[in-house]
């Protein structure tokens, strides 16, 4: 049967139209909105955003969170992935358990850790049983910014390591066993084998895992609200507050543009730093 030339275009048309309407158009609108203010076009929204009391704290918290959470997740996922490779019995069960958080939303993850870390929660009960503290203690209020931050880190690592694991395991499965065996024949220790064989071959998967996780980590929001209320300002949370509470769409859009610029920059950095040669792309 001859393929009509228009057929593939007909098939992708709905998706293209949809993405144009709900991705490209809002993208352009957000940018336009961020430069628009009462008196016309200008950077008034941006000066207002930068001048805001929470701005610097939000930037600092967001970046600190990303540079703490993402490396922990990648290291943990790499460890889990190599553990799975060695596993002979019960691999499916362990894999299922480790991927459960994949289905958990960030809001739910925050609430889960709230159950653990709240004043009369399980962490404090455990400390009490060990004789470390005598009564309930707060870890999650504004007076304890460090423990609040660590609580958010715990929730994020708990929830989103699973996605890194899935991407890396999928990548590990593509690496032919012979390479590792060859390295062993030549006397490489497990660590050397991991560093010189596994890691370089895993680069494409690492790259996509890093891009995905970093973009999503800059978007972090509901976890923070669930664990610490509004005690820990965060970029997306500020955008939400400006939009919902202050009804100021311009400043909210300025925050959105800032977040998107950061995400895009992070993606480009990863693409450059972990350049994947075409022949490595399967």
């Amino acid at each position, binding site marked *: *049967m001859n393929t009509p030339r228009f*057929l*593939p*275009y007909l*098939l*992708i048309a*709905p*998706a*293209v139209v*949809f*993405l144009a309407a*709900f*991705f490209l158009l*809002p*993208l352009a*609108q*957000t940018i336009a*909105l961020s430069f628009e203010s009462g008196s016309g076009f200008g950077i008034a929204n941006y000066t207002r955003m930068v001048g805001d009391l929470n701005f610097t704290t939000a930037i600092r918290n967001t970046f600190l969170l990303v540079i703490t959470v993402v490396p922990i997740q990648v290291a943990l996922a790499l460890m889990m992935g190599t553990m799975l490779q060695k596993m002979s019995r019960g691999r*499916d069960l*362990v*894999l*299922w*358990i*480790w*991927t*459960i*958080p994949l*289905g*958990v*939303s*960030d*809001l*739910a993850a925050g*609430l*889960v850790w*709230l*159950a*653990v870390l709240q004043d*009369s929660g*399980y962490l404090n*009960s455990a400390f009490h*049983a060990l004789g470390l503290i005598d009564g309930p203690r707060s870890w999650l209020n504004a007076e304890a910014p460090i423990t609040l931050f660590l609580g958010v880190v715990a929730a994020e690592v*708990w929830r989103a390591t699973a996605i890194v694991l*899935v991407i890396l*395991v*999928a990548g590990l*499965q*593509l690496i032919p066993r012979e390479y590792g065996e060859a390295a062993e024949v030549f006397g490489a220790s497990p660590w050397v084998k991991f560093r010189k064989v596994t890691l370089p071959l895993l680069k494409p998967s690492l790259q*996509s895992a890093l891009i995905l996780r970093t973009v999503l980590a800059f978007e972090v*929001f509901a976890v923070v*609200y*669930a664990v610490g209320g509004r005690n820990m300002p965060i970029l997306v949370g500020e955008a*939400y507050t400006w939009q*919902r509470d202050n009804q100021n*769409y311009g400043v909210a859009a300025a925050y959105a543009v800032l*977040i*998107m610029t950061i*995400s*895009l920059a992070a*993606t480009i950095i990863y693409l450059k730093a972990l350049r994947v040669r075409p022949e490595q792309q399967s």
Partner: protein
Amino acid sequence: MKSLRRATYVTGVVMLCAWVLVPIYLVALGAFGGRLGVFKWPKTILPTDASIAAFMAFLRIEGVWNAALNSLIAAGLTMLFSIALGAPAGYALARHNFRGQDAFRLLVLLTRAFPLAILALPLTVLFIRVGLYDTPLGVSLVHTALALPFAALVTASLFAGIPRELEEAAWVFGCSRLQAFRKIVVPLALPGLVAAAIFAFVISWNEVFAASVLTVRERTLTAYLLTVLSESPLHFRLAGGFLLIVPSVAFIFVVRKYLFAMWGIANR
């Protein structure tokens, strides 16, 4: 030496399993423990005072059912839209070589570099104007933008895995293109399509930001929980968290076989 290494390895695996499972168990205790359970000090790890009644009390709060229903509708529509729009695109990518193919792939991949949910911000104004604001349909449209790129890439690999010859044989025997697709390709691709659809469902069910920005009264469950966070008692918050977790964990269990195939491919 060898047995020591083995012991460390097994301990590591068990501890990582506990790291995932114990917090879920604890939030379940909170959800079923009720008011007294949450403020009990010190807590015990055993479900001594857990009761169904405490969780039912949460479900009876005004708005919870409605929110859960809205979440179901939005997630169902997202599932439908992202497969209906994504699968044809995936089929085109798998079966046809056409000009602009790379541009389309780029568009799909580009969505990944942006925090898409944030793009709900400017849509508020538009949605108010056309009457989509504060409806599950409006929310599902934004969620489809999140799920569609994923659905297109997954279905593309799914269709690419079905031999072209099978389809061509059906054409030879007099099937039209559409018939061949329906009778040959769809049955073979069905399990994978279902897995991709379930993933779209979970993406929507779990999304917080866009849903909160685009609704006021007809909130989805995530949006409802986010807005009542500061004013609701702790045990209700924990019950809400538990209610959010249950369906998505069940879904992940159903699609676990496809997880790696999907992600391995979606990342090429």
